[in-house]
């Protein structure tokens, strides 16, 4: 499968029309995955829908807080990723755990994908969830039980960095929310996910949780414990008013016995002291308050390079599709773009494109168990098999 990439900083239809027209002339069965910056959603999504409908081009896409193009973050425009032949694509809504059809929809997602697998094993299941869906880890568990190692798993969360609900998923005809965009990429060798957050010695336990809400830690209100631990471990004072800014530097980590860590970024605080995270925290999970990567560390880039090299060999001249965690960018601030530039330089990729994401999906081992991460970078090439 060959692909193409085009970034459009503004919503001038002529330029987009010209590129789509050229692509379609070369690839009559093509389709487009569009990543749209949140700021231009209201204009850009209808424009793309109209253009693609008019030209008969299958379209799917999602809205992200910012886009990655030329190894930089851009809060405007859209990024068009071309499939020479549009793969199986579907948008599912009603995934919110409170929705009565939620379990049925998850089951349907897995069944639909299984139905479109033309061989026992192969390809990558690329998923973009609305970040407002609170039970993504559970959904991935259920998908893995059903699909197992028949596919690799990768993906990211779309939506607004303010975590306000909005229709962030779309295709040719509709925009929706509280759902997922699922694409079955037949020949894609998968992605690499890394975050390099480190765990201190002190452990705490999420003694009471509800999905992505930690109600109590060590049998006390979650925020009280969080505040004490941050102060004790990192000498940083956190109160209700400044919660979000320092919290991105000290996310929760769910500890695994193999020393791996799943990052859970705290993003909101409730009156009762509950803390909301991006992603579920299982009840009784062993938690720690992670130390974010050092600002001058390139450890994550190195690990990504190793992983990508194992998968693809040389990346020279290839486009690197990257989803970069919004919380990570806040933590690293200006160093975040340097990390992207380092990634491009280290891998030798022609360009790094993608989006600022609100959660990342990947696995620590190829064909392994998919995990839902925060604070991570997900990378894959956008030019087919190596």
């Amino acid at each position, binding site marked *: 499968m060959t692909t193409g990439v085009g970034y459009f900083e503004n919503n001038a239809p002529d330029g987009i029309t010209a590129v789509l027209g050229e692509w379609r002339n070369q690839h009559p069965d093509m389709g487009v995955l569009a990543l749209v910056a949140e700021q231009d959603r209201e204009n850009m999504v209808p424009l793309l829908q109209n253009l693609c409908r008019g030209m008969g081009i299958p379209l799917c896409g999602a809205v992200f807080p910012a886009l990655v193009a030329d190894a930089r973050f851009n809060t405007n425009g859209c990024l068009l990723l071309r499939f020479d032949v549009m793969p199986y694509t579907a948008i599912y809504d009603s995934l919110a755990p409170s929705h009565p059809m939620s379990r049925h929809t998850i089951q349907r997602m897995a069944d639909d994908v299984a139905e479109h697998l033309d061989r*026992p*094993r192969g390809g990558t299941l690329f998923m973009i969830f609305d970040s407002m869906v609170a039970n993504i880890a559970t959904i991935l*568990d259920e998908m*893995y*039980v059903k*699909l*197992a*190692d*028949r596919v690799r798993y990768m993906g990211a969360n779309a939506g607004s960095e303010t975590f306000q609900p909005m229709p962030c998923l779309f295709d040719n005809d509709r925009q929706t929310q509280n759902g997922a965009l699922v694409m079955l990429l037949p020949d894609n060798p998968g992605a690499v996910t890394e975050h390099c957050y480190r765990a201190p*010695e002190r*452990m705490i*336990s999420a003694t009471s949780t509800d999905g992505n809400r930690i109600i109590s830690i060590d049998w006390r209100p979650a925020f009280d414990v969080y505040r004490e631990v941050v102060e004790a471990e990192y000498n940083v004072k956190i109160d209700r008013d400044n919660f979000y800014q320092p919290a991105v530097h000290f996310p929760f980590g769910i*500890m*695994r*016995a*193999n*020393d*791996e860590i799943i990052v859970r970024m705290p993003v909101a605080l409730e009156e009762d002291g509950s803390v909301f995270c991006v992603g579920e925290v*299982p*009840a*009784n*999970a*062993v938690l720690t308050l992670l130390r974010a990567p050092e600002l001058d560390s390139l450890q994550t880039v190195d690990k990504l390079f190793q992983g990508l090299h194992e998968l693809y060999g040389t990346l020279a001249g290839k486009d690197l599709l990257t989803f970069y965690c919004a919380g990570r960018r806040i933590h690293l601030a200006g160093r975040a773009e340097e990390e992207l530039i380092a990634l491009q330089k280290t891998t030798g990729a022609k360009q790094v494109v993608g989006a600022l994401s609100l959660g990342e999906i990947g*696995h*620590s*081992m190829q*064909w*392994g*168990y998919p995990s839902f991460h925060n604070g991570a970078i997900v990378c894959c090439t956008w030019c087919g098999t190596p």
Partner: protein
Amino acid sequence: MNREQILAILYEMAIVIGGETSLQPLVAKTLQRLLFHTSFPCGMVLLFPEGVQHHDHRCEYADIRMEASIGDYELSLCNGSPIRIPTTLLQGEAELTESAEPLNMLPCRKDYYRVFLKLPIGDCGVILLLSPHLPTGSLPLARIFQPVLGNFAKAILLCRSNEAYTQGIIKDRQTAETAFQDLNYRNSLILDSVGEGICGLDRDGNATFVNPAAAKMLGFTPEELKGSPLHNMLHHRSSDGCGLLPEQCPITLTLREGSYHNIADGIFRKKDGSDLPVEYVSTPLRENDAIVGAVIVFQDITERRQLEKEKEALQAQLVQSQKMEAIGQLAGGVAHDFNNILTVIMGFGDILKMKLKSDDPLHANVVHILEAANRAAHLTRSLLAFSRKQAMNPKPENLNEIVRGVEKFLRRVIGEDIQLETNFKEEGLLIHADRGQMEQVLMNLATNARDAIGSGGRLIIQTESVELDSHFIKSHGYGRIGTFVLISVTDTGAGMDKETCTKIFEPFFTTKETGRGTGLGLAIVYGIVKQHNGYINVYSEPGHGTTFRIFLPLLTSGEVAEPKAPPPYPEGGTETILLAEDEPTIRGLLASTLRDFGYTVIEAEDGSDALAKFTEHCRDIQLLVFDVIMPKKSGVETYEEIRKLCPEIKILFLTGYTADFIRSKGLVDENQALLMKPIFPVDLVRKIEEMLK
């Protein structure tokens, strides 16, 4: 990772294990957490069947059930199935091993996994986690989970025991449910099959149950009735047509007071708005003594009502027939005696008239006497006709020809003011009838019509053939199945009320002023029709004319006889005749007549006397003339005794009854001659002359 971290992970695992009560979620969630913590991509829980806790260590392979697997597509296809694995994967302690060989037998992705983490679960089985390469962590994975695996084994046993117990409860419940459903099914089969309508009502009178028979009778579907207030739907009202308010409705009373009601003549309203006559029973439904509803059982009594009406009609018809029969017998009896008297008057009158010269001043008186006697004879014949004791000479006749034959005469009877119309819908309608009597019927009906019309009107005579079927018989209360000719005689006269119609065929019943009618006209018609095995009915309404309908059996074959020429005047003879008649005047009359015609007459006053006279003059007597009914010894008995003495002797019986009557009683043989009184002398002589030839 420090001790605290390990304990925290074990704590989390212990919570997961302890939180499940069913085997499948227990093994699936435990496996999921193990995969999460170890980062192994694939794992399976293998358990020995329940009750089998040890495998044979001497065997190279063991059969075990794949209770759950996650992460390998091929492996997932074996979930829930028994698989065969090398015993090395079951034996020994927990271990993390890099060796692909034991994994080759597993039904998983081939040539991919090279590392397995074996975690024995007590005597229950083993957890195997598979990976293509060794994990990167520093913890001793083979030992770290050891503390919770014991709990896991106990949890498995507990879940199995729990599930077995639950299965037992479920089985018991299913058995009970099956029995309940079976009972329900049989009950519903009964309720669906019964012909009676059954409706269940709740406390508010809404239908909670309607069986198919009820829905069918009412013209609704059960769904249309269920949940609806039955009183309103059926618009309950009483049989007299008055609407019933809910508080008057027996069903409402059942619901309110718990009273039982059996209503024999209720009315329900059907969906199409028509009435459904019903008999219904309303019974309260009680639960712990409280009224919770009612059940209504009803049946459609439309047919029963129809049968009752038909029975009433038949009863009325029977009463009418019995009345007519009784009147007929009375009239017939009177006429019989009257005939004897008339025979004397007419006989002696006739002799007297023959002996008087025409210019004799007494001649005119005798003529008057004979005319009066003739009218009396006519009256007697009428009475006999009504009582069906009139002599009858039935032959195949063409009905239309009979009507055509009397048409001219009828016009004269009804006069010029009344228009006579005939309508022969079919030709060739044959009946077995006495032509004269049929003419009499038409004459009498025409006379009746004339009197009803007065001046200016129409008299219509129509003939056709009709089929009488069971429906006709049921609805009219008379008739029998078969093809009949129908003669309809319709006038446009004054008509009659219902009461008059019921008496119209009774003798001497008349609506005419005194002296204008005998009241025997329609009685004669009735008698003649009955004598012809037919039926007659009248339909009339005051002011709308009258129609008489006469049904006579249709003859399917037969030839219509030509009318005979009148017989010649008798000459008489010289033979000796033994005449036995208990009535002296008649005996004297007949003897005198026969002697006038040259015969020798030996008279006997009864049967015994006749027997004695015959014994005395047996050589001379050529003919016996006996009255059938006589005191001491009847004419028939006397003849039987004489015949033993003289088998060849000829006999002529006389009777005041009709020949049919006498023959039907078996008194006189079909081959024996019989004359009916009053007897004209000429007829007697003609008959004797014929017999002695």
